């Protein structure tokens, strides 16, 4: 397997969940980029080609004005899950109502490259994912019982499904 280019969108990637990245680095088969908020994620997705993109559901907006606006709009509209910006990111990329093209890099527009790695249960997000035609997206739940190789395992699972 040639080196996989992976983007992990996760606000705790360099704090609470940093243990998960070590097995990826030691394994040596992936080039891993971390985006800790929606602004960084959108920036990377418009600049670099990725084989695999792993998205967390609850992420902060970051510094980009557009993402700050989206976050504040969600809060103002009294949406209970206003920090589900990971879903908003997927909506921004894959919702039919969004102006096309949504990303500058077509390679990152393939739904099968995406995986969801989150503490939310699948049932909590499935209807929103289905609306984006992503009901079959690869999903893995974060919890205290997961092995410290959980991220690497998930990357390899998505990679295997692409072949």
């Amino acid at each position: 397997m040639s080196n996989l280019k992976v983007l992990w969108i996760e606000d705790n990637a360099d704090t609470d969940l940093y243990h998960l990245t070590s097995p990826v680095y030691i394994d040596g088969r992936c080039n891993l980029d971390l985006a800790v908020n929606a602004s960084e994620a959108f920036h990377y997705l418009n600049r670099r080609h990725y084989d695999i993109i792993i998205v967390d559901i609850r992420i902060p907006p970051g510094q980009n004005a557009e993402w700050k606006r989206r976050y504040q709009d969600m809060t103002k509209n009294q949406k209970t899950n206003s920090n589900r910006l990971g879903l908003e990111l997927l909506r921004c990329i894959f919702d039919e109502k969004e102006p096309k093209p949504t990303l500058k890099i077509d390679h990152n527009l393939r739904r099968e490259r995406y995986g969801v790695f989150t503490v939310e249960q699948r049932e909590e997000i499935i209807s929103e994912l289905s609306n984006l035609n992503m009901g079959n997206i690869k999903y893995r739940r974060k919890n205290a019982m997961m092995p410290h190789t959980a991220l690497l395992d998930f990357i390899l699972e998505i990679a295997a499904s692409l072949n």
Partner: protein
Amino acid sequence: MTLPENFSIYNKLVNEVPIGLYKVRISPSGSHELVHCNQQFAESLGFAHPKEIIGKDARDFHQSREKFEAFYSHLIRLEEEGKNMNDYIVEILNHKGEVRKVEVHAKLLQDDEGNITGRVGAEKDVTDYLETKQQLHELTTDIGKVLHSYTSTLINSKHTMDAIVRTLMTAADARPDNKNLPDETKIIAKIYQNLKGLQGLWTKFLEKKETMEAYPGEAAANVDRLLKLLMSMRTEDIQIQQISLIRDVSVNLRQQLKIIGKSAFPKELIKDFRRKLENILRLCNLVSLARAIDAILEMETNVNNLRGYVLTRVQEKPEIQRVDLYDLMIGVVKEMGEYATLRGVDLRLNLKNIRNLYIEGYEKDLIRIMLNLVHNAIKYSWVRKGNARAYIIIEAKQTFTHALIRIENWGVAITKEELENKLIYKIGYRGIHSSDRRRPGTGLGLHDALKVVRKHKGKLQITSTPSMSNRNMDYTQPFKTEVKVSLPIKQDI
């Protein structure tokens, strides 16, 4: 005969208003005859039309005669006190045999001599509402219990980690300002020194390679690759996430060393290599544990405050208390002391002006919001200048009528829009910049603070202004944030 227009309007009102209205007459024989009711009343008892129940004894609508007597004697008692019956919950038995709960508002009717002749009333079926309220109460209590045991778990984990830190730490690893806490910067520098030491030793290994008959090629190649991965980091790049990588790589290296140890490499070199690896592992564990303790302390305050907030929702309204505000603030500062030390933040106090000041209020609520406000100030503080320590200011003064508390910190900004649109007070809202340096939170603190201050008829004012050096309103640069709480000394309750 044409009915007057007013009568027609009244009739329409009586029949369309979505509550049951009725009139009962008490006959000389003692029966409580229903003489009038509207459509809503008939339906609430499971009948299709008022005609079906007019003339019946209203006592039979109650679940039992005892319950009717309790209701009726309460109504008479209120009448004697010159009051009407409001919000009284009665259990009735409807036509289908179901027990329903209705909220009754009633008044006795009397003749000129003061004899009770009947009653009029309005009622509303509140069965579903009361059930939902009860479920919510139970749910809230359960959440409170879960949060309580969660807090205990966090405290237990923290104390366990403290004990492990004590066994791993030497005096040379301690912070100069607190010998119980590991000095992260110093430890990371030591880790880097040890990594360089490993690299040096490995060079010596490789010098022996040519003279060896059975060279452990695969294990050596693995060591080479793993060491290169470690040495790609420079000391200034070693962040907490790299600590995890260094630890995992060290564990891998230890496994490779077992293979290499069986070869003809000099035993002294092997021993030295192993010693350095063990030291690296000890130091990595120390840093990780210190960080984990920091995260627990951070989360424990959040969870504890959330627990307090949830449980106040299910408690009866407490009596107003006489609160020693100075003592309260000193208690809050003491409780936040360890967290402040860990975060390297000094607490500068000026509370002498409220010594011996007692205010009327709700002590538990005030403690909870003050803990939250001080916690926030510590959490979002940056060092103001060079190597100086970060600090927050907590000061208080009093006027004739009010106590004024001011908490100031210097660091993470609250944006103008968040302040103007009052977003920061919305439940669950976390400030745009609040995740700076990965600070966790519940988005509850300021919502709760505003509620409690209002409950005390006080005022909460929050400002966030750019520091002197930050002239362009750059939100990535430091802001001075001030929280001012004004509480009346006496409550007119």
